[in-house]
């Protein structure tokens, strides 16, 4: 017999209570892991996206807040005042390359997909795209589409397939190579075609700008602002705004998860307190057999910690399963659709180990008071307990 074997025998003796207490901590940790891993995958997707955006500056309406900027990028919102005239003015500024994008939403087989109107000739070198299959758009008059790699895979599209956008049948001309960004899940059509289909007139969603000399970025922001009456944000600022929104959502979710872990901790305290009352006589027997207060304390603390470790492991497994299943649905909202919609869950070793440790620590802390109560019982009092 060893202390750990005794602990396992004690804890599994009352199976019902063991299972229900374990469920409490499992649910707590599972929700914690779910939110954490989804938040984590969201953040890493955003970081990856920003690297693939290919722009240093983004021109949006003056004074647009972070939420509006995200909404513009995702196609939720079409700014009323960025016109092709503005685009032409920006293009006139020397030392930068700019490209206008009209982002709209559509659906293929009832699944949402992003449609981007672009200047096809300028966009390809701007993004550094390569073709996976088929050919690229031949020009502004080419009334066909090029689809991202993941979209082609998801909707089984290949050169020659047709898609219906706003009631108009478009032929898929080519499939882009995988970029790892939102471009993978986007359908690209010529700007004029997009403007006609969505009846936006000559409006565009935003203008992406690449600066030749990064050191002069601030100066260019000023120049653009003076040339067109619009707002300019750097991609870093934009990323920061998005991350802050995602961060707020994350913190809220994690706080909810923390509350459930806290509730589970009280479940453990309750179980362990009940155990100290029920096993008062047993504690007395162990004391009579020579168990020191420290030993009794250790036994009860280990029992509590055992709940934490087992609950942590099952919680992490359940949490990762839930987040994998739920992630594709969650990725359909305004914030998260900005990032690549494939909805992959991040199984981060730090999250896994950290959550199990967190669970163990919470359980051990929860066990301190009941263990202390058990250890300070006097042998005679405990052994005479009926």
């Amino acid at each position, binding site marked *: *017999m*060893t*202390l750990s074997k*005794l602990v396992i*025998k*004690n804890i599994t*003796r009352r199976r019902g209570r063991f299972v229900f207490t374990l469920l409490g901590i499992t649910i707590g940790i599972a929700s914690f892991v779910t939110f954490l891993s989804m938040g984590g995958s969201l953040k890493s997707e955003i970081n990856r996206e920003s690297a693939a955006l290919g722009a240093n500056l983004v021109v949006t309406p003056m004074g647009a807040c972070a939420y509006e900027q995200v909404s513009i990028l995702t196609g939720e919102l079409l700014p009323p005042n960025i016109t092709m005239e503005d685009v032409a003015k920006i293009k006139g500024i020397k030392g930068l390359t700019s490209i206008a994008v009209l982002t709209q939403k559509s659906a293929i087989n009832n699944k949402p997909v992003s449609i981007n109107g672009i200047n096809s000739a300028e966009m390809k070198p701007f993004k550094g795209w390569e073709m996976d299959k088929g050919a690229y758009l031949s020009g502004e008059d080419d009334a066909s589409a090029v689809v991202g790699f993941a979209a082609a895979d998801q909707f089984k599209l290949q050169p020659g397939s047709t898609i219906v956008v706003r009631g108009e049948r478009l032929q898929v001309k080519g499939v882009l190579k995988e970029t790892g960004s939102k471009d993978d899940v986007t359908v690209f059509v010529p700007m004029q075609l997009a403007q006609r289909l969505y009846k936006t007139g000559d409006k565009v969603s935003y203008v992406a700008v690449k600066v030749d000399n990064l050191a002069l970025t601030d100066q260019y922001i000023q120049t653009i602002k003076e040339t067109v009456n619009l707002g300019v944000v750097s991609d870093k600022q934009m990323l920061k705004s998005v991350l802050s929104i995602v961060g707020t959502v994350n913190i809220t979710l994690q706080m909810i998860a923390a509350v459930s872990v806290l509730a589970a901790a009280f479940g453990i305290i309750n179980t362990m307190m009940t155990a100290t009352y029920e096993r008062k*006589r*047993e504690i*007395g*027997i*162990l*004391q*009579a*057999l*020579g*168990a*020191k*207060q*420290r*030993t009794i304390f250790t036994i009860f603390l280990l029992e509590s910690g055992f709940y934490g470790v087992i609950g942590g492991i099952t919680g992490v497994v359940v949490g990762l399963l839930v987040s994998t299943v739920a992630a594709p649905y969650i990725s359909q909202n305004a914030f998260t659709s900005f990032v690549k919609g494939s909805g992959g869950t991040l199984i981060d070793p730090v999250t896994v180990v950290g959550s199990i440790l967190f669970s163990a620590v919470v359980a051990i802390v929860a066990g301190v008071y009941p263990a202390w109560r058990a250890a300070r019982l*006097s*042998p*005679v009092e405990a*052994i005479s307990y009926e």
Partner: protein
Amino acid sequence: MSEAIIRTTDLAKSYLSGDVTTHALRGVDLEIQKGSFTCIIGPSGHGKSTLMHLVGGLDRPTQGSVVLDGTDISRLDNSQLAKLRGDKIGFVFQFFNLLQGLTARENVEVAMMLAGVPEKEQASGALKLLDMVGLAEKADSKPSQMSGGQQQRVAIARALANDPAILLMDEPTGNLDSAAEAEVMEILRKLHKEGKTVVLVTHNNEIAKQAEHVICVKDGRISS
């Protein structure tokens, strides 16, 4: 001349319950010799169990001292007292007090673990002790699967797990029928013959007659 393994001097214990002080023991001087078989007898509620608890280091006296095998245990702290119980004393109680979730063998093994016996040696040691009390075949039974007499024999095997200098027993046959009582007493006689010091608390005169020495406790004092 044999030496005293237990010596108490002016040993007193009182309990305060609300405003009422109950004097369980009122100045007890006694000596128990090494290797003896002693019965402490007396009516219920007259301080026999309290005396056993004090002698065994389960409780602390209000006054006086207990010297056990050369150590004044009234001066020990909780941890030292626990160590002393684990090293020198084997307890047997009226209600057996086995750990219900464990088998007979595991009950003995827990006592061995607390006495510091390495895990590898526990199983064989426990089986040997259970064999000694005639219960080797019940080694894997839980207390609920055994009769009262069998449980008490397991409790005796457990009390011997640390090879104690002294066996302290509080009404060990109080809950047994006469056949089981005879079995337990037979084991105690055997242990005594092998040189163990046995101290048995009882209110049963028939049991007391089987002991070498009888100490009578009445109203918290030794009476002859």
